[in-house]
């Protein structure tokens, strides 16, 4: 399969990438690892007129701690995230999720920024981003902007990213000390994508009352979502199995369940419940 012809240009800096996006009159697309975009272009589902290669923009690479947040440069690959010492020390759940993306070859090329900007409804990172109050760092014609992940992800392959802006980094809140986190996923047996993926972060007081809970779910529907009703139910309550089960039964309530040949919406809702219960038992048990 061969993509439609396009022009190819390289950007050496973020301002240059913005200028090239402007010059492309809405026909431009950024490419880094290309592991979301190139497959779409080969199917001719995406036919950008100009590809702007940003893979040499070094300021968008690497991982750092800024205050209580872990900032991951948009060009950092999933393989790099999975082995990064700062990630493993402060946000091991991000490494846990990164290891479950695609396969070794895909993780070697695919980037965190590309994954988030692509907004595939079955991608793994959106669930983690939602559970860790992620913020998407953009730079555009009017300067820098920080957009909370919930305002960034709007639908399947749809984001609020302005046409001439670049995703430069994603920052994740390091959860309070004493909390536990996990990402559990029901793999599609053929594609490896998340049929349902649940990221849960939970903590409890010495008395066993839940004092921190965040749950993000991906794959189930058109857009990854936070399980606000389940979180609200559990917050402040004793972290008992009964309460966890009741919270998990609310897991699908905040999302629109999708349906395809592989999994009905009813089945997806069931998987949301089962995987949320497993994740909560792991982090609050």
């Amino acid at each position, binding site marked *: *399969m*061969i*993509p*439609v*012809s*396009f*022009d*190819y240009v390289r950007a050496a800096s973020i301002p240059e990438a913005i200028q090239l996006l402007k010059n492309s009159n809405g026909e431009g697309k950024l*490419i880094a690892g*290309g*592991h979301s975009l*190139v*497959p779409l*272009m*080969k199917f001719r589902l995406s036919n950008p007129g100009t*590809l702007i*290669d940003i*893979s040499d923009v070094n300021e968008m690479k690497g991982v750092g701690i800024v205050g209580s947040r872990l900032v991951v440069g948009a060009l950092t690959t999933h*393989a790099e995230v999975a082995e990064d010492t700062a990630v493993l020390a402060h946000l091991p759940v991000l490494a846990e999720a990164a290891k479950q993306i*695609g*396969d*070794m*070859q*895909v993780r*070697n*090329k695919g980037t965190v920024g590309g994954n988030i900007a692509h907004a595939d409804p079955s991608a793994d990172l959106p669930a983690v981003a939602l559970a860790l109050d992620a913020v998407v760092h953009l730079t555009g014609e009017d300067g820098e902007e920080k957009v909370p992940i919930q305002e960034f992800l709007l639908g399947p392959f749809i984001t609020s990213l302005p046409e001439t802006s670049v995703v430069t980094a994603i920052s994740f809140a390091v959860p309070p000390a004493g909390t536990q986190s996990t990402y559990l996923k029901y793999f599609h047996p053929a*594609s*490896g994508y998340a049929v349902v993926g649940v990221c849960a972060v939970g903590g409890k007081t010495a008395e066993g009352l839940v004092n921190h809970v965040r749950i993000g779910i991906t794959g189930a529907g058109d857009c990854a979502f936070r399980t606000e009703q389940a979180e609200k139910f559990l917050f402040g309550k004793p972290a008992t199995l009964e309460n966890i089960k009741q919270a998990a039964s609310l897991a699908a309530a905040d999302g629109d369940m999708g349906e395809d040949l592989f999994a009905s919406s009813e089945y997806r809702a069931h998987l949301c419940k089962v995987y949320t219960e497993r994740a909560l038992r792991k982090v609050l048990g």
Partner: protein
Amino acid sequence: MTKKWNVEVKVNGRVKRAEVEPRLLLVHLLRDEFNLTGTHIGCDTSQCGACTVMMDGKAVKSCTVLAVQADGAEIQTVEGLGTVDQLHPIQAGFWEKHGLQCGFCTPGIMMAVNGLLQDNLNPSEAEIRDALDGVICRCTGYQFIVKAVQQAAETIRNSQQQSQVVPAEGGSV
């Protein structure tokens, strides 16, 4: 008319150049321009891994990389592993443990294994199977492939130990 790009890649240690359309995929550059047909095209949708090559020391699927993205990179294909007279330990492992039947997927599998073993010479069976997640073999059922990888890892470990032992025996340390 789309502007063509001059790309220069080091393939199996030799610098090669080509003028390419931006839409040309790396796998086609290797096969059609450089005549390195050991790299296969299977699914063409980044699922099967038959097109796996090493790019700057990492295993990647060359059907999902544009040739222009590989400009300036070092590429290793299956042709760069060993020769018929002197098989690479990975190739010898597949030979001895019968890690293939039809052999179509084998070049990509061996390059994925190369990616695994360069980072981990002592992989557990689970780690081997995880590294094989991005390649598909429809003949073998993977059992013999896992054995071939274990054999290759052992051969490389042994040869490294021997090469470490040699100077000590020679008294040159």
